Each structure stands twice: as C-alpha cells, then as structure tokens.
C-alpha cells in the first residue's frame, strides 16, 4: 500500500517534467518554419499629450548621476505633468543593469525607455529579438538625420530602421595623466607601446605604478586600445569584419604586447573600481591610466580638476588620429505603458538643448554636429574636433563592434589569459568564440 502510494506520487511529480518537455518540442518545431525577418513596426508620432509616469532605466548612478539629473530637470521643464521615475542600477558599463533589463523585458514589463550602448549591443540583442520600435519617422520629423553624422546613424541602425536616439559620444582610447607629476618623474606621455615599455622601468624605480588598472572590464578596455595601437585602424576593423584572423601573427602580437604591459600595472587591480584606478593617477601613485573619457567627467565634475591644467590626456599609445567611439542611446521598446511620455523623452534626448545640457556634465561630446562647443570644457572641445576629422572605429568593451555573446565570452578568455598569460592560447580561444558568436565564419 505504502509502496504503491510512493510510486504514485513519484509518477505524479514526473508528469509535469515530461509534459513540459513535450510542449517545448512542439514549440521548436512550429517556429522552425517562420525564420524570415519581420519588418518592425514604426513609432507613431501622435500618442497624445504626455502625462503620467515615465520610467527611465539606466546605469548612470553615482558620479554619472548629475548629468542624467540635469537632463531629467530639463525634460520636466518642458513636460511638468510627467512624473519621471529614475530607475538606475549601479555597476560600471552597465554590468548589472543589463541583466536586470533582460529579466524585465522577458517578463513583459519593459521600462518606458532604457539606456543601451549603440551598436551591436542594441542590435544583436534587442533588435534581433524584435522588441524595439523603428524610430525613423521620429528622426525625420525632428530633422536629426541632418545633424547626426551618417557614420553614427549607420551604427545605430540596420537596413530595417533606426533603433535608438544617441545622447552622447564617448572616446575609448584615451590615456590620462597629471602633467605636473610626469615632469617630476622626468617622463613624457608615450607615443607607442614600445615607448611606454621603455619608460615603465624608470617609473617603477621611482615607486610609481606605470599604468593603473581596475576591475575586469577595464582590462578588456585596455585590450582594445592595445589592439588598435598594435594593429592600426584597418586591421582592427578587420577583426570584426572577418578580414583578419584572430589567430594571425598580428592578433597574437596584441596579446603578447598586453602581456608585457600587464607587468607594469598595479597587482590589486581586480578589486578596484575604474574611479579608484583614476584616483591612483590623480594621487600620484600611478603615472598613466587608459580609460574612456567619462574619466574626464569624473575628474572635472567630481574631483573638481581643471582639464588641460590639472590633468592631461593623449590618444592611447599608437592610436593618434583614430577615434575609438562608443555611444549611449535611448530606445523605444515595444509595449511600453506610457508611449506618449516615452516619445517626448526621446525628443528631449535628441534635442540640441538636451544634448548640450547632458554632455558637458557627463564628460562626453554631443552626437550632433551643431552643438555649442562654448558650453564644453577644453577636453571635450578637443574630443569634438578629433571626432570631426579622425578615423572612427568602434569599441569592443562597450558594445559597438560585437554582440553580447562575444563580449561575455571575451571576458572569460581574458580571465584565462590573466591566469596563464599564454598569448597563443588566448588567440585560439578568441577565434573559437568569434566563430561561435557569428563574428567570423568558420
């Protein structure tokens, strides 16, 4: 009797497992048929007068919050009847925010608008998933097609549409230093990685860390600057369009150079935030730091340092004349609760006034060519000039050149490399993940 009951209960417990499995199989079979791309619905331009709540999802907390708050204030001046809910999830480069966003999107609870890196990070994840509205009508009616550079439009759009409104442009390949300190140590900003390796020993002898580094993603950030410096812009692009093999001698050389550079970094790097790595430079404990130009925002806005005087910058070694860019943007997810407010928010994000309010505080430059440079500091003016006439390439660590699958796997390859420091093996692993994530074909 007892045995029978146990058996019955066990069978009952197993039943849903089997049924779910069977259901899943049918699901797969049914969908295999519809593989053709569906044209995404376009945004409408008249959702009525905006009111109610507007939830904005981003990872701009802490030191980057003042810029977002200024933009929200500007928005509320124009639309006082909308209540803005500022939903931020902390974590540099959006490491935590993106995961939270995914669970919300999958759960059918999309925020009214969310921050996303322009490029493959948006396209490979959300556009491919058919969860975004095409913003082309908005770009046309607001006249943004004339003021936003075509290169940028191409990167935030596909042949089926334009998917997000870029609010800023950041430069990734920047090296930061304190001119006063360099003078004291008797060194100059290196022009190439060979230069850097030459002066690095002297700096170490002075008791200074030659290059400060922070938590794991900043190592990927350093890698892309090293790759650009070692390969040059054409071959760097070749990694992404399949013209240069990840296992080629040049690609292995990138890893080998990184290996040498890592000898001259602070050994506690994985427990530091990027701000702490910048602090090392500001405090005179380290000579250089390679970080995107949000570091300029941090030093100018949070630490109150004067650009060009208290701190200086140069293109990262070997990348003079190339602008490695990344951009934050806001999109319009399907099925938002308050489309009228979302539309008005996007209008503010793309407006001249909005961009010139946000970017000086963030340390970035406007994605618009007509922005008023007098509102920006010395660093941003120089970045805007470079953006106008430099060769433009996309960043890996910040989602422009590769989809999220590759980005995550690349971080794993980097961890492997940090442990065994084997350039050959890292290059082979990078090739493997490039194939797996569809960056290069087999």
């Amino acid at each position, binding site marked *: 009797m007892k045995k029978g009951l146990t058996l019955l209960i066990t069978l009952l417990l197993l039943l849903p497992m089997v049924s*779910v499995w069977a259901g899943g199989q049918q699901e*797969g079979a049914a969908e295999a048929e519809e*593989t053709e791309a569906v044209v995404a619905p376009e945004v409408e331009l008249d959702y009525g007068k905006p009111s109610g709540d507007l939830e904005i999802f981003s990872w701009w907390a802490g030191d980057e919050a003042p810029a977002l708050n200024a933009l929200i204030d500007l928005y509320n001046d124009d639309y006082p009847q909308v209540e803005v809910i500022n939903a931020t999830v902390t974590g540099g480069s959006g490491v935590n925010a993106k995961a939270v966003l995914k669970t919300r999107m*999958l759960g059918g609870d999309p925020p009214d608008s969310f921050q996303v890196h322009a490029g493959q990070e948006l396209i490979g994840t959300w556009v491919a998933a058919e969860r975004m509205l095409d913003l082309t009508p908005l770009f046309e009616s607001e006249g943004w097609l004339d003021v936003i550079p075509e290169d940028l439009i191409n990167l935030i759009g596909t042949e089926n549409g334009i998917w997000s409104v870029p609010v800023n442009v950041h430069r990734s390949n920047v090296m930061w230093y304190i001119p006063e300190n360099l003078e004291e140590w008797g060194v100059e900003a290196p022009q190439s990685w060979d230069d850097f390796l030459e002066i690095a020993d002297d700096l170490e002898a002075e008791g200074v860390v030659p290059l400060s580094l922070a938590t794991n993603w900043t190592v990927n950030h350093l890698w892309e600057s090293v790759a650009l410096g070692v390969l040059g812009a054409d071959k760097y692009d070749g990694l992404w369009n399949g013209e240069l093999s990840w296992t080629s001698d040049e690609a292995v050389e990138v890893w080998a150079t990184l290996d040498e550079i890592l000898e001259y970094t602070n050994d506690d790097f994985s*427990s530091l935030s990027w701000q702490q790595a910048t602090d090392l430079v500001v405090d005179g404990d380290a000579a250089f730091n390679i970080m995107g130009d949000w570091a300029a925002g941090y030093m100018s806005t949070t630490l109150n340092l004067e650009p060009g005087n208290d701190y200086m910058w140069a293109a990262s070694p070997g990348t003079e004349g190339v602008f490695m860019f990344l951009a934050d943007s806001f999109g319009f997810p399907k099925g938002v609760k308050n489309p009228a407010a979302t539309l008005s928010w996007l209008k503010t994000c793309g407006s001249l006034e909005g961009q010139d309010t946000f970017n000086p505080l963030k340390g970035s430059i406007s994605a618009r060519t007509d922005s008023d440079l007098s509102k920006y500091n010395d660093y941003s003016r120089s970045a805007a000039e470079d953006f106008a006439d430099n060769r433009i390439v996309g960043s890996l660590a910040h989602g422009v050149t590769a989809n999220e*699958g590759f980005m995550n796997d690349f971080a794993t390859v980097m961890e492997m490399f940090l442990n065994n420091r084997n350039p050959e093996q890292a290059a*082979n692993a990078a090739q493997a993940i490039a194939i797996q994530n569809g960056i290069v074909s087999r």
Partner: protein
Amino acid sequence: MVGSKKNTVYSMLVLLPSLILLLIFVYGFIGNSFYVSLTDWGTGAALRENPLKNLIGLENYRQLFTGAIHDRFRQDLVNAIFYSLFLVAGTLGLGLFLAIMLDKGPKGENTLRTVFLFPMALSFVVTGTIWRWIFSPKGGVNLIPTWFGKERGEFLWLSSREQVAVFNWQNVPQIVALILFIIFALLLYGGWKKGRQTQIIWGAVLSGLMLFYALVLHNLLPPIIPYEEFHGFSLATIGIIIAAVWQYSGYTMALYLAGLRGLPVAMYESAKMDGASDITYYLKIAIPNMWPITLSAIIIISHISLKLFALIFSMAGADNASTGHPSVLMYLITFRANNFAVGAAISVILFLMAALFIIPYLIQSYRARR
C-alpha cells in the same frame, strides 16, 4: 477503517493546492530547465518572444566539460568542491569547539551564545560587503602587521591569482575512477566482513572495473581535451570561505550545543567515574553520540555551500574568475551572454550536485522512520 479512509481523502484535499503549486513551480520548472539545456537556445535572437530552439542532445554538457571556451566552468566546478569541503569542515570544527566551550557553562553564556549566533541573522550581501573591506589588499587585515611595526601584508586576498594543489584536467577521469575504486573496495571489505554474498560480488566487480579503467583504459583512450589544462585550489577563495565560516559556525554551534545538552547527565558522570578526562569524554563519547546532528549539519551546510552566489557576488563581484562558482557563471552566461541553453545546463549540473547531498539524507531518514 471508514474514518481513516475519510481522513485520507481530507488530507489529500488539504495537500492538493500546495502539491499542484509544487508540481508546476518546482518540478515543472526543473523539467523545463533540463529541456532547455538540451537545446541551442541562445544563438541569434535569443530574446525574441518565441525564440528558435533546436534539440541538440547533450552537446552543451560536452562543451562545458571538454570545450575550449568553457575553461572557466571547469575551474568554477573545482572551486565549488573546495568551497563545500572547507565550508563543512570549517563550520563543523569551529561550531563544535564553541559548543564544547559553552557546554562547560562559562560566565555570560547566554550573551556569548547570542553573539556567536548573530552573524547568521545577516544576509550574505551584508556579510560580503563587510568582509570585502576587511580583505581589501591595501587595507583591512593586511594592515595588522603594521600595528607591530612590521611591513604591510602582501597577500592579495580576493584578487589573488595563485593556485595550489594544481592538477591537469585531462587526468580527472582517472582521479574519479580511483576515488570510486576506493569506495567500492570499502564496500567489498564491508561485505566480506559481514559475509554478505551479493555485496561481495558487486564490490569486486565494480572496484575491478574502476581499477581497470584507471590503470589501463585511461591511458589507451584519447584525452578528454586535446591540450593540458590546469586547475587547482584558488587562494582567492580563502577570503570567501572565511566569511562563510564566520557566518555559519554560530549555527552549527547551536546545533551541537543542543546535542550536548540533550545527552543524559548520567553518561558524563559515569564516564567521569571511570576516570575519563574531559577530552576523552567529548572525543570518545559525546561526538559519536551526536552523529545524527553531525549528519544533518553536513547536509545543511553543504547545500548552503552551493548557494554562495550572493556572498561571492557582493564580496568579489561576478567577474572575478578566481573566486568563481558555477552559480555565478550561470548568471553571466544566461543574463549577460544570452546563452540560455548553456546556462540551463550549468543549473542542471548544480541541481544534480545538490541532489548528491540530499538524496542519501532522504533515504537515510526514510529508512530510520520505517
């Protein structure tokens, strides 16, 4: 008889709602995870409303254990085993020590008991944040030597990349076979001692097979991965282990203290009468008599060791591979790389590991009840 049948119906009716919820939300979802782990969900448009899934069998599992790009999973698995071992040993040892000290009834026992139990009331996130500061390489415990005029400590704690007890992943099947050989050989020995024929046969056959694999077959078969890959005990995990032991040894102390107080006083007195010292009493009499408590403590702590996600995430961050754990990697692969199928495969492996701890316990308690 009629009454008892009625009772059965009522009890079934009362149980039904929670049974249905369990069926759907626990067992149904376990089944679904297992199904997802057999698909390729994650390539291309993984986040579509109706994503494309193709069944690919056990390929994800094969990739995890032998694929070139899942190096981190294998290290995390090794970490998980060490986390479990050290967490169980640490909490049981420290908990028992504290319990014996308190059993002697020192002054302020009640206060001390509360003090030792308090860490358990904290969430892992709080513990993780506190211990992160304590183990920060440029501060915290590394500063202690400077109080005595010595140099600051150099150990990097959570940022350390050093490993000890390093082994080649290619040798893992051999190591596993040898461990199984020892287990089956013990079975054989037990059967021989008690004169159970079937146990002798099974023990002999299985231990023979394992020995044959370890010594002969393993060397003949091609290696599971084509190159040497080294894994070992990451020193960075020491920090996490210390924090977890700190949090849970109060709990094992409470378990053991209850056990010690539950032993009849006569036992202690007669031991004393026979001239046993305190040490002899605790080692030879008290601890063996508390075996059921030790067993349940092992089960509870070892399944807590599989749920270290929150502690690791808040203490070292998800990206720190040296302190990695399969649960953290599962989060990264699922929610950052959108590779849901591989993420599901990792969670199924974690589920099986948890079952490994819990099923023997269930069998044992079921037998004990009969």
